[in-house]
Each structure stands twice: as C-alpha cells, then as structure tokens.
C-alpha cells in the first residue's frame, strides 16, 4: 500500500467536481459497487415492500394518489440509508488504497462496526428520522457519521488510551462546517429529486408500453419508485464518501498527512536497507 498513490486523487474539490468524480468512480468499480449496494439494499427493499404492502392496494392508490405511499417510503428509506449503504462505503474505503479489496475483509469490517451502526444509525437515528424536523441537523451535523463509524472506527466511549469516542469525533469533524454542509445537502436534495423523478418516469413510461392493465400498472409504479429512490441513494453513497474525504482534506489536511506518512515510511524503509533518503552531495539518490 502506497499512501501517496491512492486510487482516487486526494485533493480539495468543489461539490460539482465531487459529483463528476463520482461518475468516474462508479465506472471504475461498477461491478463490486453494484454487488455491495445490492447486498445492503436488497433486504431493506424487501422489508419495505412487506411493511408497505397495505398502502400499495390499487384502489387506495387510485383514490388517494401515490403521495401517502411516497412519503412513507421516504421516511423508511431515510432511516435505512446508513445500514443499506454500509457495505458500499466499506468497499470504497478499502478501494481507495487497495487494488482489489477482499470481500472477507469488507465483511469483517462490517461486523466490527455493526454494534455502533445499530446503536447510532438504527436506534438513535429512528428517533430523529420519525419526526422529520431534525432532518437538516441529521444531514449537516451528522452527515458523515456513517463514514466515521465504518472507516475510522473510534470507540463507543472516550478513553485515555483509546482516543475520542465516535460521538466526539463526529462532532469535531462537522463543527464549524454546518453552512457548507447544509448548502451541499440542499444541492444533493435538488439533484436527487430530479434523478428520482426522471428515473421513476422512465421506468413507469417503459412499463406502460408493456403492461396494459391499470391495477398492475399502479402496483408496478410503486415498485419503480423504490427502485428509482435506491438508485439515487446508490449514486449519492459514492458522492457522500468523496465528500467525506473532501471535508477531511479541507478541515484536517488529510492529503498532507498521507504524503508525510508515505515519506516517513520511505525513510524507515531506507533506514532498514541501510540507504539514505537524505542524499549527500555526489552520492546516489
């Protein structure tokens, strides 16, 4: 592993640059990313379909329109995002430094992070997602909590030797950047809404040409909304990961740290080989 030769160039980026780079990342890792997303999303997709099966009655949809269903799906999905995208985030974390991340290591990382994921991102998050009003706080002041839990793996409670807890680390990472993160969140919502709307429409229109019965059409359109929503979330998982890196670069100079650590490793290695990275004039580099 060479710290200053990451698979994705580490540097400060604007949000539009992050979005564009996400397309390249998705292209490079299309297969593994799709599998990681599928592993995370498929069980929750099935769970949502089961939980909301009562709302998908064609007669209900015809009388009340799709909006109660859409709203319920949205609340459920916002709650489920961290868990559903955890495998993909772990994969991206390893893919940044490794040529071919192993499935076993990603699975082990997931299991190690699972207790904190359940406490922070399932139980605690449910309390914040259900009333809707705390969403802006959740998506700005805890925007990268998932990355902190999965990639940094701080302890649950602060200790003298163990370093800061996940909570304090997360607070330190986001502190003072609320405005910037809020603007990015609004941009992501706008972009996401357009993506979901267009892909839902494309899927529904395509289906309209194939399935003529109205009841089936209504039923399928609700499934298509699920698919469109999860598709957009898959894209924004990559965006969120790259934005997390960007925040660490801007805030903590992570790219500088990587370069210095790589250089330190070179010096150590040279010392082990009896060479010197500090050249003497006329000597070999």
């Amino acid at each position, binding site marked *: 592993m060479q710290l200053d030769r990451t698979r994705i160039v580490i540097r400060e980026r*604007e949000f*539009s640059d992050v979005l564009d780079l996400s397309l390249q990342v998705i292209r490079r890792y299309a297969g593994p990313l799709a599998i990681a997303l599928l592993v995370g999303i498929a069980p929750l997709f099935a769970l949502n379909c089961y939980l909301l099966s009562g709302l998908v009655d064609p007669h209900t949809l015809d009388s009340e329109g799709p909006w109660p269903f859409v709203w319920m799906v949205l609340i459920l999905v916002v709650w489920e995002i961290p868990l559903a995208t955890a495998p993909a985030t772990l994969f991206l974390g390893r893919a940044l430094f490794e040529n071919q991340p192993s499935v076993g290591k990603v699975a082990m990382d997931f299991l190690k992070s699972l207790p904190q994921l359940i406490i922070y991102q399932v139980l605690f998050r449910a309390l914040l997602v259900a009333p809707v009003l705390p969403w802006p706080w959740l998506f700005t002041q805890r925007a990268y909590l998932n990355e902190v839990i999965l990639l940094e793996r701080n302890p649950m409670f602060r200790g003298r030797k163990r370093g800061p807890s996940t909570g304090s680390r997360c607070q330190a990472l986001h502190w003072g950047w609320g405005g910037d993160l809020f603007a990015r969140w609004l941009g992501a919502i706008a972009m996401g809404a357009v993506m979901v709307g267009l892909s839902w429409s494309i899927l529904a229109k395509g289906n309209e040409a194939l399935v003529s019965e109205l009841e089936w059409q209504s039923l399928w359109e609700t499934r298509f909304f699920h698919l469109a929503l999860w598709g957009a979330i898959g894209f924004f998982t990559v965006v969120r990961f790259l934005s997390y890196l960007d925040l660490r670069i801007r805030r903590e100079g992570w790219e500088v740290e*990587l370069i210095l650590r790589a250089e*330190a490793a070179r010096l*150590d290695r040279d010392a082990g080989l009896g060479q010197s990275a500090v050249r003497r004039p006329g000597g070999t*580099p």
Partner: protein
Amino acid sequence: MDTQDRQLDTRIEVITPENIAFRYRVAGPFRRLPAFLIDVVIQLVAAIIIQLVLFFVFDFVGLLGIGIGLYLIFFFILMWFYGGLFEALWNGQTPGKRIMGIRVLSIDGKAIDAIQATLRNVLRIADFQPVLPVPIGPFIFPVPCCLLGLVTASFNDRFQRLGDLACGTMVVVESRPGLRDVMRIDDREALRLADQIPAYFVPSRTLARALATYVGRRWAFSPGRRQHIASHLAGPLYDRLGLPPNTDPDQLLCAVYYRTFIADRQEEGTAETALPAVGRQSGVWGNTFDVAEPTAMDIFTSVNTGRRV
C-alpha cells in the same frame, strides 16, 4: 500506465504534437449543468423580449402575421444556433460557460472551429434523450431526461457527451494555477534549528515535495493538528539529523524546509532545480515503492486527536 492503475481524477493530460504536456481539469455533466441552465434562461429572456418587440411593432403597422413569422425564424435560430454562434465567436464559450469559467476545446488542446461549435450544439438534441411528455395543467411539456448524454459522458475520461464525441471536443475548467512562491519561515526557533542541520544534508526529491506540501498548507491547521501531522515525518528525521527526539515536529519540518528551499539557495545564489509547486499534485512523485505497514482502516483512524481545528 494500466487503466486500472491510473488514479481517478477529473484532470487529464493532453500531449501536443510538439510533445508538450498540458494538464486540464475537465468539466463533467454536473459542472456543466449550471452553465447550461444560465444559457437556457438567457435564451428564454431573449425570446420573450424579441417576441414583445416584434409583436408590438408589427401589430402597430398592421402586419402582425409577418411579425409572427419573423419571430418563429428568430426563435428557431436562437434555439438551434445560440450555442454554436457564441462558441465560435467567443473561443469556445457561451455566456453561461463564461460565467461558470468553463470552455470548449478540441481534444488535442486547440481552440474549436465554427463547424465543431455548431455541430456539437446541434447534436445536443441526441444527448437530451429520452424526452418525456409531462402534463402540467392543460399543457404537455417535453422534459429532456438527458440520460443518453449522462451515460455517454460517464463512459469516458473526458466526460464527452455524444456531441463532443462526434466533434472531437471536450469542456475544460479555466484555471490559472501558478507556482506559489517559496513560503517565508519567520519562526526563530525553526531558523535556529535550521542552523543545527548537518551541512551535508540534501533531501531527496520526494522528501522535498513532502516538505513543500506541508509548509504550504500548515497555515490552515491548528497548532495541535500541525504537531500531529508533522510528527509522522519528524520521527525518522530526528536520527538522521542528529536532533533530540523532543524537538518540536512542526518547527523541525519548517527548519528542514528552510534549509532546503531558502538557506541553501541563498548560499548557492541560484536555483538549480525547479521548486515543487506547493499544493499541486503532479501525479508523478519520483521513485516510489510499496509500503506494507498500515492497513486501510488504520489510515482512516489517523486523526484521533478529537481537537477542533
């Protein structure tokens, strides 16, 4: 370099026939979107103003039919040739692109000609596909999904949509990155430390780059964060430079930087080699080799100070 080994970035390198390499930041679909939206707004405002003027004038002289005809011709030209006209006249820029600081270039780095400018804009209609009919009230509006353009742009490193591929063009971000000057070191302790560094000391190229990157960015970090980052490199340097291990890491790196880029050059009276561009990544970092020590997860946990920066 193998495609899989290439670092992912929105920067590309264009090598001219003269074997000169230029680096460009290519503008992807999301960077181009605001420029496009600005151009759409300008087109709509222009269409409305011209419509009002033509209708008012020709209605006044009793020739409203001619006014409508002229307006339709103007509208056709505006919708189909606005982009091509501006890009041909303004060296690859429309008003939207100029505001957003992006420009269309040929893939070999040259300015585009009128044919390229016109064709890439006419072919935009293909990139808009599929277009969905969206009913809003009594009207049905065609809404372009731009799926074809987005997918096409995602499949190449230059983010070329179909129009760009057909014309051999790409959109780049205009930036004027300059080499920064050598950073000033005013810390007296660092200057004193610099005097203690052995006279034979000449850092390797990679070490010099690392020092330049650190000193160029350290002003943005808190004192605690500086100590944390600098300690990674300071550790191996203590032994080599014969300095006590309780030396301040930040001051040590500043001292080494001062010796490397300022003191030695003042003594020599000339700069023998080009200074590394602080804050820029060249993509080439000299002789490098694999380091097997830290794992990926260790790297993410490297910031565990919990300090507010």
